[in-house]
């Protein structure tokens, strides 16, 4: 089991890195999709099948399709891709990245790895039934507020996309 975890974790990190490194944005998106798959693999290792499936449906199945859609429409030209980064951008990028690295080291240095009690640990906690019960009893208010938030976002999107009176259709 541990080997599977290490394999998945390294694959996740590698693909996530390739998302940033890839020159072609379509390749980046494909690596991002593979990253979502490996993350779903982690969920399955944690016995959270529902989260794994929903992660695939929502992220890989819907959101990334839209990403790909938009990138295909943009069709970034070759000149733009070969555009040279100036020295000052490189220097600021290095400094910013280094600072982030220091902050992360400082934050993770004192962090403790959470432990679990093997005796009273419920391995079925990630199953659909249990997740549903927890969401609709213990976390009912946050759950409802999140759904209202989604509704607001949807209404906003409709507002932005709505045709004004007198707009042309195409």
């Amino acid at each position, binding site marked *: 089991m541990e080997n599977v975890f290490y394999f998945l974790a390294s694959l996740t990190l590698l693909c996530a890195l390739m998302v940033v490194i890839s020159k072609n944005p379509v390749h980046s998106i494909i690596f991002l999709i593979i990253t979502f798959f490996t993350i779903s693999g982690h969920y399955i290792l944690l016995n959270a099948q*529902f989260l794994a*499936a929903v992660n*695939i449906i929502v992220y*890989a*199945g819907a959101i990334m399709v*839209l990403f*790909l859609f938009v990138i295909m429409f943009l069709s970034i030209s070759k000149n733009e891709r070969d555009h040279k980064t100036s020295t000052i951008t490189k220097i600021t990028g290095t400094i910013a990245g280094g600072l982030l690295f220091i902050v992360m080291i400082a934050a993770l240095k004192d962090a403790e790895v959470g432990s679990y009690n093997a005796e009273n640990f419920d391995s079925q906690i990630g*199953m*659909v039934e249990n997740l549903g019960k927890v969401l609709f009893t213990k976390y009912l208010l946050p759950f409802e507020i999140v759904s209202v938030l989604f509704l607001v976002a949807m209404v906003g999107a409709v507002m932005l996309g709505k045709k004004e009176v007198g707009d042309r259709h195409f």
Partner: protein
Amino acid sequence: MESVDLIYKAIYILVIFGITLLIATYSTYFERKIAAFIQDRVGPNRAGPAGLLQPLADAGKLFFKEDFIPTNANKALFIIGPGIAMLVATMSSAVIPFGDTLIVGGREIALQAINVNIGVLYVFGVVSLGVYGLMIGGWASNNKFSLLGAIRAASQNISYELAMGLSLIAVLMMTGSLSLREIAEQQAGFNWNIWYQPLGFLIFLVCAFAECNRTPFDLPESEAELIGGYHTEYGSMKLGMYLFAEYINIFVASAVMSTLYFGAYNFPFMENLRAAISDPVLANNVVTLIGVVVMFTKIFLFIFFFMWVRWTLPRFRYDQLMKLGWNILIPLAILNVILTGAAILLKEHLF
């Protein structure tokens, strides 16, 4: 898991894989035969008796054709595209229960590759991935018509997935389980979900047509306006893989529809038959085997329906397609969810 079980699972998965490919192969033959029947022609009748070897001849031809890759295409993605389409298409038959349990030598054998408790979500997830093969292939061809086909495929699939998911929710509310096996078991005998969910089934059927890119929703490859859509630049077996994936998708969609709405492997009077045979093991096996036959009959009827519609109905216009998805099917699906919820509550109060 014991090694015997593992071996059995491996054999079962290989058999299902083989059957999937066989059905997809012969779907091409029957599609042409049915088209010929509807248009009052003869259809393929040269290769073998009644043209039965036609699929093999087609496959041989496709394999030996020149494997052409356009100069400015993205080579890696151009090759990966049909592969993804094929891979995703063959994945979803893993959770479909093709039959109940067989008892061989005191060992119970479930006729299902994997019994996960999120079966419906698995199918839904795999279906939502199906569009990647089309999109990647269409984009990598570096052809405006292919790109248009890919974009059409993407927007169509996303639009119809919503209505499909909503119509599924009504079924899940009734059965209270995400496991396809449990859904199948609850429809024992003639207690099929179609009697309770006619509207939901209709919505699901229309969405299944759209997700499989079949006429009247085959806008991504409409030859009249887009030459060949996403597979304009494809030839030889790569094109064959795309066409093959489409037939596998039809097979899987038919299997899912018969499982969710038409009682999977259940048939009327199955309990009477079980009671009529005195030996319980033999009774169970006979009922299971008939159940498998019944399941495949249902699947074939649905596949025939897919073909019948293809050669009967004309294609939608693209704005009509979007309007049907967003303005008609989604509100209807939401109405169906509300009606189902009300019916479940009323049933609790009244009975």
